[in-house]
């Protein structure tokens, strides 16, 4: 028998790079290709994180690394009809639609529609060809490579969402971005590279919608970079419902300018191992950042949220509310880091993490990490872990409602203050629906 030599994950992905490069068809001259090659060097130098790394103490990525995933570009991309993707879309409101299949832009499935003058909503590969100058100063500048997962995404960066909103422009309709991941043949590696850039006094709302199709294992390894210009308002929703056997890692890095507001919503349903790094840097004064998170896990799911607000400048505020509902043998990790730097006087920073365990075997590791170097600040944090309240359950049942439905009402009640912050009304009820679908519990729908 011809035994394959055991290769490390780094070696495996480095060894596929030549095949990827061959597929680029002469695009290996672009600015992006220099970035890729540097990242490939990083990939050779950096190891994938282990539990010995403090940032990855509770999340073991070995199960991800034992598979040899095939980067989507060098794998076959499944074809979908418009009708087939409909069930995956959030509905009952108007939106510009972008669709990516295994991280590659599917123009034929997308419906971008009319955009205000100067607004770009497109795929990264097309922009790299047609207008590289519009993005070259942002890509891989907003976000730096922290670990081998980031290096892997960057080395193979090819496609992803690009949104550019010029000064003074408001997008009335949100952009819905469907990332559909699926493969019949390979264990596919989906590597979206997303960029959202907003100019002065602009406003945009983006809903990223990650979905799995079929039951084959795949791996989404994503980087999203966000630049919120002066006085801009950026809402970024992430609703992640990959299939339960897949792996999902994203690093989101935002940089905010003066008077800007950034609202990040992070709702996790799917994935066997999920890791989100949500980072924001305050690069000027009077900035507002809101993080809202909700994670639902059952079976053996592992969901790790690492959030970070870097208060580098004075007179800014951040507010964070993360809530988890964990069932069966699932495990949650929450690490909320806030740094208030010496110059960042008059900072207001608040953080809350609340978790409900629905079974005796579900667990959560929660850790606030506040590092405060300024003296005139208001900061608070709190973490609670509990179960559904017996008295509340009794109250509901004493009205004739069966126990299972009473529990569903209490789950909905618990998730409510996060869901309530969602600004798109029809999205609220659809997220509520997904909660019960995911936890396999009786649904409770509000009367219209």
């Amino acid at each position: 028998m011809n035994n394959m030599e055991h290769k490390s994950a780094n070696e495996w992905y480095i060894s596929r790079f030549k095949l990827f490069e061959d597929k680029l068809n002469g695009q290996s001259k672009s600015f992006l290709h220099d970035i890729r090659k540097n990242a490939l060097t990083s990939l050779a130098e950096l190891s994938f994180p282990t539990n010995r790394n403090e940032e990855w103490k509770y999340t073991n990525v070995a199960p991800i690394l034992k598979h040899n995933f095939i980067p989507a570009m060098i794998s076959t991309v499944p074809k979908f009809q418009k009708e087939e993707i409909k069930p995956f879309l959030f509905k009952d409101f108007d939106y510009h639609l972008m669709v990516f299949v295994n991280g590659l832009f599917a123009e034929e499935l997308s419906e971008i529609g009319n955009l205000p003058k100067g607004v770009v909503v497109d795929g990264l590969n097309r922009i790299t060809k047609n207008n590289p100058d519009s993005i070259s100063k942002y890509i891989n500048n907003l976000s730096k490579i922290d670990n081998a997962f980031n290096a892997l995404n960057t080395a193979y960066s090819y496609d992803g969402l690009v949104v550019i909103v010029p000064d003074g422009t408001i997008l009335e309709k949100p952009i819905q971005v469907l990332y559909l991941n699926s493969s019949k043949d390979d264990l596919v590696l989906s590597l979206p590279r997303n960029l959202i850039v907003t100019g002065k006094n602009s406003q945009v709302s983006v809903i990223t919608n990650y979905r799995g199709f079929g039951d084959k294992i795949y791996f989404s390894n994503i980087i999203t970079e966000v630049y919120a210009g002066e006085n801009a308002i950026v809402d970024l929703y992430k609703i992640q419902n990959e299939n339960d056997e897949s792996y999902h890692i994203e690093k989101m890095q935002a940089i905010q300018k003066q008077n800007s507001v950034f609202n990040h919503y992070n709702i996790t349903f799917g994935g066997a191992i999920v890791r989100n790094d949500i980072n924001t840097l305050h690069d000027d004064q009077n900035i507002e950042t809101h993080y809202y998170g909700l994670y639902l896990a059952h079976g053996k799911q592992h969901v790790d949220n690492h959030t970070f607000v870097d208060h580098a400048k004075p007179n800014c505020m951040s507010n964070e509310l993360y809530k988890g509902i964990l069932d069966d043998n699932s495990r949650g990790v929450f690490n909320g880091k806030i740094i208030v730097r010496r110059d960042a006087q008059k900072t207001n920073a608040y953080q809350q993490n609340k978790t409900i365990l629905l079974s005796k075997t579900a667990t959560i590791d929660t850790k606030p990490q506040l590092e405060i170097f300024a003296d005139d600040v208001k900061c608070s944090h709190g973490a609670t872990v509990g179960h559904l309240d017996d008295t509340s359950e009794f109250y509901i049942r004493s009205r004739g409602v069966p126990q299972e439905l009473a529990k569903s009402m209490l789950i909905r009640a618990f998730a409510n203050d996060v869901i309530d912050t969602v600004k798109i009304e029809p999205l609220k009820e659809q997220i509520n629906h997904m909660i019960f679908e995911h936890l396999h519990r009786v649904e409770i729908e509000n009367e219209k």
Partner: protein
Amino acid sequence: MLSINNLHANVDGKEILKGINLEIKTGEVHAIMGPNGSGKSTLANVLTGNKSYEVTNGNVLFEGKNLLDMNPETRAREGMFLAFQYPIEIPGISNATFLKTALNEIRKYNNFPELTPKEFLDRIKDKTKILGLDDTLISRAVNVGFSGGEKKRNEIFQMLMLEPKFILLDETDSGLDIDALRIVSNGVNIYRNPNNAFLVVTHYQRLLNYIQPDFVHVLSKGRIIKSGGKELALELEEKGYDWIKTEEFEIENA
């Protein structure tokens, strides 16, 4: 309708009810009075099936059926209702959803069809009017942002909507100003009829000026130590609970 025989119950391993006997017939209103810690709320919670309370002895028959074998939702569907001393807030669930779910569960159990949306709305309009409630209440989340008085009124509203046969009022007057007390009592009096029965648990006689009981029982240290007509409530108001305790003491030492 309800027959309580030698009922004993524990809370956190401590015996609170020490042998309650009480017979309530259709059409009657009974009041249970007693000092704090006498076991009034325990009785209300045991009868409605709160699992934090453990029954150690005795039995309770509700229309001939063994009540203590039923879970809380079955008791409700059989026609029991507890107006809570401290109603619970349920964010994200509207009063409409809550009541429609409860009502339809109760109707299904009793082989009645679900109410049509129109029937449901008409019933809401009817009942909110009785209690002087704004009918926008129905789209608000259950008890969220309600004042103490509004919560108590909402309990009575739920009672009117669900139409139970046997109603327990647990300290419904606590925290109510005189106007709210009148409204709440009026709701109860309108609903009171020969086919239902009430057990009113209260520390003070005040509520009984508005909801006139047929019988008054005094609960002390987990036992009913005195029963009488509504004049007993007035006597308690005048003299406090101490004279009964003394009397009891004398009986025990006789």
